[in-house]
């Protein structure tokens, strides 16, 4: 009987871990991918002038009319592509932070890294009268500086997730007051420009921006993939990971660096679209629920969130009101934050 059991086990267990994606995860990825495609097609088609599905397909394969070409390639497609890329970048940045620091609150938009980008961009707009690429560069630099500051402040024989989050939340408050100071001192016209930037949206999408963001992703995502096996072991705890041959602090620093770069680059082009980094991975992991990193599902959730928020912000609000996508993600994310704070530590997740 034992022999039978063992052969049975051999086939079962040697199959299970060898397949990196469970069938459930594959189905989730396929459905989320479909959702992103549908949302993207809707966003490109619907508007003051609505394209039929056949017009859309014809235009995309280069057979469209002149006006359709302008509407699709000049006006609507850049928004959608920027939304997809930025959403994916935010989501992966959030997923990395939350996994490395083992805390769902530890996403760059909660612990002040996006805030660092905001305060830096607001300074560029309000103090130096900058616009365009300078604002983007300032935002990028601001995110990096704040992330480095939090990392150094929370270092004590290594970085613990809990300390990192607490210090990050403190830094976020500090940044809020700095922003308040900047906004009350600024000129009305520039303040409104800064406020729009700080809400975040894909309205100003241009192909060159998209190329820079896409290039960043092309460089960083393979690094994430290369470090993913170590991250899967880090999920089991620092000591377990160290015992399994993972250089814990070096890996954590590398992954934090990649996550900050992803978040900072996306923020530079679309502003800190609220809560996308924060909610995407937890949503994806709750759906997949197989203990995996769920990076691909997270990226798809992030992309879908930004595209959907932008679509709703443009078309679904009463009275022809159009707002940046960040308003809608904020409306979605804030209740989730409250729910998370209310339920954290009720269930023990550790073994």
């Amino acid at each position, binding site marked *: 009987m034992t022999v039978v*059991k*063992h052969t*049975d*086990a*051999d086939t*079962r*267990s*040697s*199959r*299970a*871990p*060898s397949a*990196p994606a469970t069938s459930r995860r594959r189905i989730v990825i396929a459905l989320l991918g479909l959702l992103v495609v549908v949302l993207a097609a809707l966003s490109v088609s619907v508007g003051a002038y609505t394209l039929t599905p056949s017009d859309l397909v014809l235009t995309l394969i280069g057979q469209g009319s002149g006006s359709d070409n302008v509407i699709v390639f000049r006006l609507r497609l850049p928004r959608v592509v920027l939304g997809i890329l930025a959403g994916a970048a935010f989501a992966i940045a959030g997923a990395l932070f939350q996994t490395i620091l*083992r805390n769902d609150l530890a996403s760059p938009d909660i612990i002040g890294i996006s805030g660092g980008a905001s305060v830096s961009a607001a300074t560029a707009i309000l103090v130096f009268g900058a616009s365009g690429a300078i604002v983007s560069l300032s935002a990028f630099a601001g995110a990096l500086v704040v992330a480095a500051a939090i990392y150094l402040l929370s270092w*004590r*024989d290594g970085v613990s997730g809990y300390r990192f989050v607490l210090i990050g939340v403190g830094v976020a408050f500090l940044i809020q007051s700095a922003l308040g100071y900047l906004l009350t001192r600024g000129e009305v016209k520039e303040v409104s420009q800064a406020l729009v930037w700080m809400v975040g949206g894909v309205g100003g999408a241009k192909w060159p921006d998209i190329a820079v963001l896409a290039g960043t992703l092309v460089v960083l995502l393979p690094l994430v993939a*290369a470090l993913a*096996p*170590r991250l*899967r*072991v880090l*999920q*089991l*705890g*620092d*000591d*377990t990971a*160290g*015992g*399994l*041959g*993972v*250089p814990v602090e070096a890996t954590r620093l590398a992954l934090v660096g990649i996550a900050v770069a992803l978040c900072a680059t996306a923020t530079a082009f679309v502003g800190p679209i609220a809560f996308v980094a924060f909610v995407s991975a937890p949503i994806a*992991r709750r759906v*997949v*629920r*197989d*203990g*995996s990193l769920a990076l691909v599902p997270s990226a798809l959730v992030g992309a879908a969130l930004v595209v959907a928020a932008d679509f709703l912000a443009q078309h679904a609000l009463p009275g022809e009101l159009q707002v940046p996508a960040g308003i809608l993600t904020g409306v979605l994310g804030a209740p989730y934050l409250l729910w998370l704070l209310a339920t954290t530590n009720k269930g023990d*997740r*550790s*073994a």
Partner: protein
Amino acid sequence: MSRERLQGAEPAHTLEADGLSLAYDGREVIGDLDLTIPDGDVTVIVGANACGKSTLLRGIARLLRPSAGIVRLDDRQISTYPAKEFARVVGILPQSPIAPDGITVADLVGRGRHPHQGLFRSWSSADGAIVADAMAATSTTELAGRRVGELSGGQRQRVWVAMALAQDTDILLLDEPTTFLDVTHQIELLDLLAELNHTRKKTIVMVLHDLNLAARYAHHLVVMAHGEVVATGAPADVLTPELVQRAFGLESHIIPDPVCGTPMVIPIGRFHRPAPISY
């Protein structure tokens, strides 16, 4: 491989600490400690709370950098090993490992193969066979598809041991593996570890709280107090009322364990004075 070593074909491992000091945040927990782990034996580290047992284990496992002194594996300082190479010889099951939400038993055990995999050497059928073997040895095969979070404490601890076994190291360190287990599951787990030591010739080093279980399962006992080793050797040679007094500050009688003859510590305490009977 283990059979070859039985015949003396494969060189034994040596693991030793020399003048080892370990500190957290500059606060020294262990100072100038010498220790040799006997190859192929079960070594149990005991001592009062906060005496530095877990810290010592972390130091040996390379999880904590010494503030002074060195730890050597096979006559080579452990900090000079590439991380994965060390992790193919020495494995550790820490006190509270984390099971990611929703992870299955097979997936968790499979992650123990990490030190044997690389960027260009991912999952192989050999990995699958070793994982299946680790699960069979720990009787977790039937749990393969279950979620770790849904298991009982005893099952969960067997799954973690399976993960450590999948790492396939000759030396296995365990930090209080029986904590949170009821007495039945404690014995079950210790039996499993004794069996792994016996049949697979694994060198086992573990921290235990229960002196009597330590005396029963250890070939080699390491007694610690205040960051120092106060006694080492076979439990029968080491455990005396004087030592228990010195290491734990506890008055006790020591009698032979009626089941296996190993020393058994009977604590006295303030309210129960020993009756004048002879054993």
